[in-house]
């Protein structure tokens, strides 16, 4: 980007937010933005929703790092949908060289069983894979300049990231314990950062504040609060009276009958109520002390051009 200061210093960006706030779009836009200038980034999802494939309108993603976007200047974004079963097999293979035996385990349902009965184990496998990609080297260079994780929503993020506590309940020693300890250390280091996406609506803001409190208590570093789908304030001064509207409409050559005037006045009033509420919520978020990043509402929905617009806005912020 040619900037002196790297405004997104972490290498692992964990993006969470309440359902419906657009966290997948924001995560994708961040991966695109960070790939600018010839960088390579990885966008990861872990919930089996295939949200990335839907967003980029591609076939469902396999458990493989595939390129989903090229960025001007030679950068590229790869995407990965982590599947807990595949991650467990890979893990077993890496540490125990199971090969065909691993596939046999899957056949009898052992993998399904293990990841079902111990959800903490599943989360260690998912975050473990993310850690592996973040720290992987190829030919003496890091495989990815940045990894962006489309993480579970705010309601589950603390438990998801607090892998050590969850697995400690089940495994006191052994390789799973070692694995979860190393993930925990990475998540608490300056290499990683959790960003919370919200809308300027009451419930998402409340969940954002709750999630920040929870992450802070877990000593997991919070990066930025990303306000998605914001609209510019439209009434800047004064009170809009019906008399003014009537004169203004007439001046503009529009119908100025009572129904139109009253209707417009109602719309303005609702807009102002909304705007005041948004201001209150914005102030509540500011009080956390974390930097706020505002992204515009995309009138046509999130398409490729929209993602590029969000990416640019994130990199400017």
């Amino acid at each position, binding site marked *: 980007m040619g900037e002196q200061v790297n405004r997104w210093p972490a290498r692992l960006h964990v993006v969470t937010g309440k359902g419906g706030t657009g966290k997948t779009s924001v995560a994708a836009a961040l991966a695109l933005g960070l790939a600018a200038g010839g960088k390579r980034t990885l966008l990861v999802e872990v919930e089996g929703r295939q949200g990335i494939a839907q967003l980029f309108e591609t076939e469902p993603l396999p458990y493989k790092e595939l390129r989903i976007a090229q960025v001007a200047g030679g950068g590229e974004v790869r995407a990965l949908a982590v599947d807990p079963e595949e991650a467990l097999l890979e893990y077993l293979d890496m540490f125990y060289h199971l090969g065909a035996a691993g596939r046999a385990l899957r056949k009898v349902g052992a993998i399904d069983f293990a990841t*079902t009965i111990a959800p903490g184990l599943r989360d260690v496998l998912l975050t473990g894979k993310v850690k592996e990609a973040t720290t992987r080297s190829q030919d003496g260079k890091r495989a990815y300049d940045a990894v962006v994780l489309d993480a579970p*929503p705010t309601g589950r993020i603390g438990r998801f990231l607090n892998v050590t506590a969850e697995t400690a309940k089940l495994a006191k020693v052994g390789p799973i314990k070692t694995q979860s300890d190393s993930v925990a250390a990475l998540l608490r280091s300056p290499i990683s950062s959790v960003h919370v996406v919200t809308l300027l609506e009451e419930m998402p803001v409340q969940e954002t504040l709750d999630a920040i409190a929870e992450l802070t208590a877990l000593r997991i570093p919070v990066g930025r609060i990303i306000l998605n789908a914001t609209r510019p304030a439209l009434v*800047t001064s004064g009170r809009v009276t019906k008399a003014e509207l009537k004169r203004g409409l007439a001046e503009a050559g529009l119908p100025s009958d009572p129904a139109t005037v009253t209707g417009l006045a109602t719309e303005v009033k609702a807009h102002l109520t909304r705007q005041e509420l948004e201001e209150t919520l914005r102030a509540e978020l500011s009080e956390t002390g974390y930097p706020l990043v505002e992204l515009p509402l995309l009138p046509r929905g999130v398409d490729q051009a929209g993602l590029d617009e969000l990416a640019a806005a994130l990199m400017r912020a």
Partner: protein
Amino acid sequence: MTASDRLDIDGLLADPATRIVVCCGAGGVGKTTTAAAIGVRAAEVHGRRTVVLTIDPARRLAQSMGLSELDNTPRQVKGIDAENGGELHAMMLDMKRTFDEVVQQHTTPQRAAEIFANPFYQAMSSTFAGTQEYMAMEKLGQLRATDEWDLIVVDTPPSRSALDFLDAPARLSRFLDGRMLRMLLAPARTGGRSMFSLVTASFGLFSRTVQKVLGAQLLTDLSGFVAALDSMFGGFRQRADETYRILQDPQTAFLLVAAPERDAVREAAYFAERLVAERMPLAGLVLNRMHRSEVPGLPADRSEAAAGALDATGDHKLTADALRIHANLVRQTEREQKVAATFTDAFPAVPAVSVTAQPADVHDVDGLRTIGALLA
């Protein structure tokens, strides 16, 4: 929206044959608010003794109904007009406690104590994927069994996917029925003292791997847990099947709840397909947070052009602002209609109703009453 009939919520709530209303949909679409508003309307307008089962309500909404903690018992909601003889009660699901109750019902006190102390039970009862959904179903079954309520309104859990709700009972049965569990249980069932002696003989690879990866203590805990679960096996299965049948019964009405966003509507469409495939009674679609222009005759482009013209003259800045607000609103309305149409075009036979977006969030009974009136 022209493709579908209008959903008649009042007709549904007034019908004494309607005993259960299930609100389902993606997270963040206003399911809980819809469920609560339906509860208020059923109690006040239709005089029904109603209970709303909520799963994870926003704090202020919960407070508006007098719920301050998870206590698993319906509490009467204050401020409800009782003129028509109705009552509204509400409760928040306590997942862990509901699971504990199920265990207690199906086993001896001593066995139950062993199960509660097992770390796997603790992990599973609070975090097992689908436990919340399964326990919501369990609680619904309990409420239905008492026959104390004219109407039960259920708010489904905020799953990553709305479909989890339907799948949870089946997933739990499949889990309990799974080959893996059978294998681990084989020695217990044959009275073997060390369950892994047999497993080791018949399936050494698995146990060696598990031992290596997880360690021995974990295996002991796990074997204790599966043996305990086995004693409740039939009960679990039976209850899941019973609840499933209640859901298929015509006394139940499923309401899909969506907001006019692409993902939420797509989720509603998946769910509609599933309900049809499973022969579940789908009553209709509730489209929350739809915007509406008060001056529908004034198109966005014309409004915006006029705002520009007023800017140029320098007068009437406020009118110009108002016209821009109007133009944005009209465009938003058009966008929302288009998104909503993707559902109504695909399911023309499913009745739908739109609820106009409120400028501020709802967190009192008055607000719920307003939403109820908009729904009906």
